[in-house]
């Protein structure tokens, strides 16, 4: 090999390496740019998700009587309005009563049914399972109108019992789903062991099965509470002059009487949801760490 060729080869190699290096640098610059762009897009989307909810908080403390953002002065006026208005108070109390009763009935009925779905054998089981979940798929407007038309002649519209039935029906699928999932993770050998040690079905359920599916039952209960408390469509149609939920009252006021009181009520609704979900989160975390 001639030295000339050697030199030429070495030069080409160096050239190549330089090329490689610069292209890699270019690539990394491009990668940086693209990840910066991706970060920006992500940030914009997250802002879109969160901002509309966050603006409610400063608005509820604004002093102007029309909607103003950002607020000029701070006041608790709208919260005081909310708390002193007998209509808002009655609506809030009515909603809370319905939500608590719905949580209880949906959790009991849903848990019993979930056990039958997960462990029992009966004819038409899969059909019945599909039927149980269908209130989640069928448009809520259809359910709302149907319940309103069917319940009105039975004196079940605008009162506690009618709401309890309708909201329990809407909330039960959440309980069934979470409890069935928990039961599928549960090791049935434990239950068999309890029964071999002399426990009956009922005793085995309360002292072995239930503590093990506690997280599923609690999640179902929380979803049931929110499914009732935040529910607006059925509540809109089923509410009467006397029995009116907080969501129906809010619906009316948004349409006819748009004041910052609604912002205060929105904050109350949102904070309630966050507290309930936060409590569930803590409960589940405690539970899993205790397990370890």
């Amino acid at each position: 090999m001639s030295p000339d060729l050697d030199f030429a080869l070495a030069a080409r190699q160096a050239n190549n390496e330089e090329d490689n290096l610069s292209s890699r640098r270019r690539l990394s610059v491009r990668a940086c740019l693209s990840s910066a762009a991706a970060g920006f897009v992500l940030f914009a989307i997250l802002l879109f998700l969160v901002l509309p909810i966050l603006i409610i908080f400063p608005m509820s403390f604004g002093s102007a009587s029309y909607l103003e953002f950002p607020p000029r002065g701070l006041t608790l006026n709208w919260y005081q309005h909310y708390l002193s208005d007998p209509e808002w108070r009655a609506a809030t109390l009515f909603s809370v009563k319905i939500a608590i009763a719905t949580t209880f009935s949906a959790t009991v009925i849903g848990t019993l049914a979930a056990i039958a779905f997960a462990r029992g054998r009966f004819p038409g089981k899969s059909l019945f399972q599909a039927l149980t979940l269908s209130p989640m798929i069928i448009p809520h407007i259809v359910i709302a109108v149907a319940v309103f038309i069917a319940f009105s002649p039975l004196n079940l519209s605008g009162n506690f019992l009618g709401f309890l039935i309708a909201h329990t029906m809407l909330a039960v699928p959440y309980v069934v789903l979470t409890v069935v999932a928990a039961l599928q993770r549960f090791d049935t050998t434990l239950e068999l062991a309890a029964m071999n040690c002399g426990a009956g079905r009922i005793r085995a359920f309360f002292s072995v099965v239930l503590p093990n599916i506690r997280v599923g039952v609690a999640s179902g209960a929380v979803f049931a509470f929110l499914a009732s408390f935040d529910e607006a469509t059925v509540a809109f149609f089923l509410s009467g002059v006397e029995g009116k939920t907080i969501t129906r009252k809010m619906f009316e006021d948004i349409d006819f009487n748009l004041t910052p009181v609604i912002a205060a009520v929105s904050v109350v609704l949102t904070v309630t949801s966050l507290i309930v979900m936060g409590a569930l989160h803590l409960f589940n975390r405690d539970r899993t760490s205790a397990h370890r």
Partner: protein
Amino acid sequence: MTKPMKIRSLTGRAAAPMPNGLSARQYPLGLSLLLIAPLFLLLGFGFIYPVGRLLGQSFFAPELGLDNYRRLLETSLYLRVLIRTITVAFVVMSASLAIGYPVALAMARLRRDLSSLVMACVLLPLWTSALVRSYAWIVILQRRGLVNDVLSGLGLISEPLKLLYTEGAVILAMTHVLVPFMILPIYGALRAIPPDLVQAARNLGADRVNVFIRILLPLSLPGVFAGCLMTFILALGFYVTPALVGGPSSLLMATLIGQQTTETLDWGFAGALSTVLLLVTLLIVILFRKVLSHSRGISNVA
């Protein structure tokens, strides 16, 4: 409990075998039916009876026949509302996918602390009532709202724009309400992809784009389909947001059914509209299931 008692009950249980050779893991028929009975009564009275009655009424009120359906099909207004409802639901689904996929991808691929932050931003709207979120959009879009304030403050407009009570407002607010239902299933599908696959592809020389196109995207498709199905059917029957944010020019099926029920009191026609909406929803569900089983078949072959 004393020791002898335990032993006695133990032997007592062993002496009585389970009937029909069923394992104790499975509950007997009678007990199963007893457990399911409360739910059966609840659904029968609170769901099947009302919905059946509403749908039945479309054939009987005001008189026996298909008059309600004829009226629906012959009036161009109602047909337009039906088509608009499907179109709006489709646009909301597509917008949710475009917005939701990047978020789901970020949640699945980012560092743990960042991903929890993104997750919190997704869950906050999910846990907030749709009513509250619709109200927030009214505040943002109304004549003296946030958007008009900012635009006129910048001197871009002299007259406030009419943003509220339009179809655009309905689509925007509905997308905001429904996008978490798109993000969570996609996130679930992405999380289920074993990280080894991505690592293997990187080792074989695939760059980020290739990893995404050849591995993450195809394997997340079941989540995409589930999310699309959820947002589409929820958008079809959504009442609260269109009723508050939309106007007469953006009437949707749900608002129309509501009007027929409470204002015109034409319950037979409300039943007919509900039947049509229900049929469209079921059709969409069947269609999606077909597509889903089809795509599963493909990925099994590949």
